[in-house]
Every structure is written in structure tokens, then in C-alpha cells.
């Protein structure tokens, strides 16, 4: 895509989630992507993640035509041109990867959402209630309790012969339940399988409100856990799609939406409305 001046145009999506910050830079295809942790400091310094992504794409900041910020931290991105919610960005991101998708289930660090999609557009959505159960945080707590690494949970659960029932109502109670199951002598893999079932049950019940239709894609950090994905498939009764990098769909969608907005403005002969564009740290307290 070329600008009015005949220059190549680039677009960036910045997804500042509760746990991870993701940046995608694209033109016709993804040129660079980066995933970094969102901590108190990182949230303030989101521009550094952007700088790293620009370095990977071998671009300067001024060469990026449009930047869309999304995720819970989208408001505090001083270098973004526009903020769009993660619901719309995820829908766009997954549709660009899997055009047949009708429902996206995103299980992030601290929330879970179901998005119903038609022709790449959101037609309905649901989000989890104010509770860590059914989110990545739930898995982090349990992994710590079991002395496992987060990334080991998926494969561990695949060895389960008989999953243990774990409450899906509360992370704290589930943690206590896990401790008592360990004391009872239950196998770790059966406990982990029970934990995955507990998350899948909760997320499925939420997403069910959308009247689920195929195809379904699972995104977010938890989609990297094969145990949760399999448990979701058991509830759904059919296989799901998982992107190669499930953390990046929001940022990818944000970049795609930036491109779409720019294209529309150019088609109408209008100038592109840009933000203040300051590649600097976010200020939270005035």
C-alpha cells in the first residue's frame, strides 16, 4: 500500500494487556512482532517495546503511517493515533488469519472474552465476570502451588488417566482444593487436568451465551496450553483453531484496523486523523 506521495505505508498495532504487551508492525504482511511483559514499569515504558519492534522491522517511527492501541492499557499510549477496544481488534485479527471463524474465545492473563464474528466484524461479545477463575491468572496460581512452570501444565495434563474435579468458582478456593488433593495423594497430572477442565467449563459457560457456531478460534496466552484447548474441545464437541502465535491476534487486528482506516481515508480523499504521536513514556498521574 502506497501513500499519496508514493511511499510505502506501514501500520502498527499495540496491545497492552494486563499481563503482556504485544506489538505488530505490518504492511501487506507482518514485518515484525514482539511480546513483552506488562508490569507497572513496562506499562509506563510501552514506547520501548514499540522501539524494539521498529528496530526489528528496520523502520523509523515516522515511517509508520498509523498506530492503533488496544487492550486495557490502550488509553495510556501517547504515541498511538487511535484507541480501539480489544474486542474489535481481536475479531479483526482472527478473521484475517481464519476467515471462517464465527466465534473467538480469548483467554488472557486476567480476563476471558467470547466474540461472535460475521464477515470479520463483531456482532456480539461477552466477557468474564470480575473473577480470576477462568483466566490465565488462575493457571499461574495453580502452577506455583504445584511447583510447575506455567508452560509445563499443558503437557503434564495430557498424561492424566482420571482427572480430579476442581471447583471453578474461585481461584483461592481452587488453590486450597489443589493443596488438599495433593495431600490426598492425587496424581499431579490428574490435578492439572482437573484445573484445565475447571477453566474450560467456566469459559465455555460464558461463551455459550453467544450461541456458539463453528469455526471457533482460541486466542490469548492460555491458548498455548494444550490441556485447556483440549478441554475446550471436549465442551464444544468439535476441534478448535489456534493461531501459531495466539498472543498476537489483538495487536495484529489493531494494525489491520489502522490500515483499513487509512485506506478508507485515502479512498475518500481525506487526510488521516493522527494522534499527538509522542514516542515517550506514559504519564498516569497529572
Amino acid at each position, binding site marked *: 500500500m502506497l501513500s499519496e506521495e508514493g511511499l510505502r505505508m506501514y501500520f502498527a498495532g499495540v496491545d497492552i494487556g494486563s499481563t503482556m504487551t504485544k506489538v505488530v508492525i505490518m504492511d501487506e504482511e507482518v514485518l515484525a512482532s514482539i511480546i513483552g511483559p506488562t508490569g507497572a514499569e513496562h506499562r509506563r515504558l510501552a514506547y520501548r517495546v514499540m522501539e524494539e519492534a521498529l528496530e526489528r522491522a528496520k523502520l523509523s517511527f515516522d515511517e509508520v503511517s498509523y498506530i492503533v492501541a488496544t487492550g486495557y492499557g490502550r488509553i495510556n499510549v501517547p504515541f498511538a493515533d487511535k484507541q480501539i477496544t480489544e*474486542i474489535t481488534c481481536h475479531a479483526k485479527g482472527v478473521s484475517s488469519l481464519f476467515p471462517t471463524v464465527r466465534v473467538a474465545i480469548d483467554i488472557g492473563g486476567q480476563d476471558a472474552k467470547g466474540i461472535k464474528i460475521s464477515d470479520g*466484524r463483531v456482532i456480539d461479545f461477552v466477557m468474564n*465476570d470480575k473473577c480470576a477463575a477462568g483466566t490465565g491468572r488462575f493457571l499461574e496460581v495453580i502452577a506455583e502451588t504445584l511447583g510447575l512452570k506455567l508452560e509445563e501444565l499443558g503437557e503434564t495434563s495430557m498424561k492424566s488417566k482420571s482427572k480430579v474435579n476442581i471447583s471453578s468458582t474461585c481461584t483461592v478456593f481452587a488453590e486450597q482444593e489443589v493443596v488438599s488433593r495433593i495431600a490426598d495423594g492425587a496424581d499431579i497430572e490428574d490435578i492439572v487436568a482437573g484445573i484445565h477442565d475447571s477453566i474450560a467449563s467456566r469459559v465455555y459457560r460464558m461463551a455459550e451465551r453467544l450461541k456458539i457456531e463453528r469455526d471457533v478460534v482460541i486466542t490469548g496466552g492460555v491458548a498455548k496450553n494444550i490441556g485447556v484447548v483440549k478441554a475446550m474441545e471436549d465442551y464444544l464437541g468439535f476441534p478448535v483453531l489456534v493461531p501459531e502465535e495466539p498472543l498476537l491476534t489483538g495487536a495484529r487486528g489493531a494494525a489491520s484496523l489502522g490500515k483499513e482506516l487509512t485506506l478508507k481515508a485515502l479512498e475518500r480523499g481525506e487526510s488521516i486523523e493522527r494522534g499527538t504521536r509522542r514516542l515517550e513514556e506514559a504519564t498516569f498521574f497529572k
Partner: protein
Amino acid sequence: MTQQKQPEAEVPKKTSATKWTESAKKVRGVVRDMYLRAFTEDKPVAWVMFALVNELFVAMDVLPVYPENYAGLCATKRIGDPFIERAEADGFSNVTCSYARIGLGYSALWQDTGEIPEFAPDGGMAKPVMMVGSSLACDTRYKWFQAFSRYMDVPYHAFDTPNPPMYYASRPDIREQYTKYNLSQLRGLVAFMEERVGKKMDWDKLDEIVRRGEKTYQLWYDAYMMAGRAVPCPFPAEDSFNCFVPAFFCMGEESALDFYQGLYDEIKYKVDNKIGSIPEEKYRLLWAGGLPPWHTMQIFNYVEERGAVFCFQAVYLPFPPADLPDRVTDPLERLIYGRYDMYIRRAERDRELGLFGECNFVGMGNPVYFVDDFNVDGVVMHWLRSCRGTTIGQIYSKNLTEEYSNVPTLFLESDMCDVRDYFEADWKMKLNALFETLDARKRAGS
């Protein structure tokens, strides 16, 4: 009976909504007077659960004070927490109705010190000579007032006001039984009041008050329906959530009749002159279930800043008024007749729409009644952590809405009074996602 008014605590920053109509702006004064006169007028005070019988208190010269309204006032001023925490310290669960928890905490704090809590807004609720609970709307209401009476050591009376079987409500034998039973309940209430205040009911006076209430109700209904249909919207939900106050808590008084005449005239003027509340009405939303977030009514203004307006709230709303036949002359029976007709009309409307077995609480408006008539683009429902009565059935209503109207439904989550359940960033994100969804639908032409 006159008590010393306590000084008010410092009020936190404003979280209430900016009002659009002159009528809505008057409601704060109505509420303030309601609590003030209970201290200043030499009349007996009753703490009452809303149950569509305010006329009885007016006729008996008793000043009713409604703790559920007071809880909303505390939440609006963001000073509900100390009451809630005190109630929870006494063992009331954090999922017990927050209207109840605020009142219970208030009573417990009073019991602790023998005085009205100094931070109580509007000088507090005056000490009553009686407590009146009822079964209307939800099951908490019996025990809530019973607990009040124990804290305050004040006699308590509860009366039953059951819902008839809605889909058989038009059967004469069911109406007869319902009327008979409700008459016995209301007569029991009158006898209790007479005993507490030491005077007899003036039935002619009650008749006059009930008939005045009927006129008031009609004006309330006409004003709300006229406003809901009007494009642009002259009377958004945040105003409507204020203007139900005289109908709920002052019904039968001259002031309530005057208020609704004024509201009707104001809305009619705005409708006739196409005066809307916001300059460009991009989207019309329906608040279709769940009580409002009294702690953060400013959220309605946030929506308006983005070009959307809640053109109607289907929560605190009047149902079509009864066409009362002349033969019904007993004022108590007239009260019952009007309430009973709600069920008949509701069942008739459901039959027209082909609905049957609708499970939502009868006090709530089913969104499918309003979406088409009021040109609604999106429906919002509020899941309340501590109100089962208005939360149960919302998923069913969402499914019905999709089936009948093809408009999206958004669920927001918090509580009517307990601000600890509110998460502003989450609400704003969800509302913005709804606007993006509506934009996408508009672009796609659906």
C-alpha cells in the same frame, strides 16, 4: 417524635449524572424534603418497603420513609460503604441486597451509639413508630424489615402481596381469590397502622387519595411512554431513573400529581419541538434489566459524550394503567384492581408477541416490548451481584431480544449500591466495544 438533626458529613466528589429535564432536577429536593419532614413535622414516621400502598400512609397522616430509597441516596453520594461494612460485620452476607445492607448498617450503627450516624446524608432517617415490610418483588423484604425492627426495637408488620399466575390472571375465579386475599392483607395492614397511631382510617379521605394516585399514575405512564417513543430522546434514562421517585414514594400526595403533570408538560413540549438531550443521537440504547448503578450515574453522561443515549429504562417503569370500572368503589379494592391488571396486560402483550412462560420478574419490562417501538439500536442489562430479583432472567431476555429484534445486548456487572463491585475501566471498555459493534453493524447495513 421530633428528633435532633445531625450534621452532615463531607460529600465526596460528584458521581451523579447531569440531568436534562427541569423535572429531574427537582427530584433531589423531593428526596431531601422526604427525609427532612420526618424530623420537622409532628407526625408519626413509618419505615416502609415499597409495595404500591403509599396512599394508605398518606391517608393515615403517617410519614413513610423508604430505606431502599435512602440506600440509593447513600450510594449516589458514595457514602454507603460504612453502612455496608457495619451490616457485614453483623454477619449479613455480601450478596444480601445492598439496599438492605445499607439500611441494616444504618440501624446497627444507630443501635451502637443511640444516635443517627453523623455521616448519614440528608440528616438520616428519622426513628419510626412502625416498620412495614411486604413480599412484593423479592424474598429479602420480609426478613429485612424484621431485622430492622429488632435493631430499632420498633413493632413490625409484614403483609403478603403475591403475584397471581400471570397466564391465568384473566380467569374471574382467580381474580376473585386474589382480590379477596389481598384485601385481607391490606385490611390487616390498616388495622396495624390504626393500632400504632391510635386513630381510625378515614375511608373517604383514602378514596380521594387513591383516585388522585390513579390520575398521577396515568400521567406518569403517559409521560414515560411519550418520551420513550420520541426521536430525538428528550428524557434519557438517567432522568427517568430520578423521576420515578414521586410515583414510588409519594403516590397519593398532591405534590406527586403536580410533579407528573409538570413532567408530562415538559416532555410534551420537548417532543413537539423536537428537543433532544444530546445534539446528535447516533445510537439509541435501552436499559433493559437490572437496577441502575446509583454509585456512578455519571456513566450515562459518558455514553452521551459518545453520541449514544439511553432512550428508555425498562426497570422503574409504569405498566399500562388499569381501566377501573365504576362498580369498584372500595379504595383498597381499587388499589388491588390496578395492580392485578398489570398481570393481565402483561400476559396479553406476551400472547401478542407469541411469548409464553416468560420468566423475568414482573416488575421489569421485557426488552422485546420496547426495542422496535422505541427505535432501539442496542440493549444493555446490568448484572447485580446483590439483586437476584432483577438479574434472574436476563440471559433469557437477551435470547428473546436476539430472536425478535436482531439488536446486540451488552451485560455490565456491578451492584446497585455496593461500589466495591464496580470496575469503571471494565464498564467503559465494554461500552466502547458496544459502540464499535454498532458502528460495524451500521457499516454492514444490518
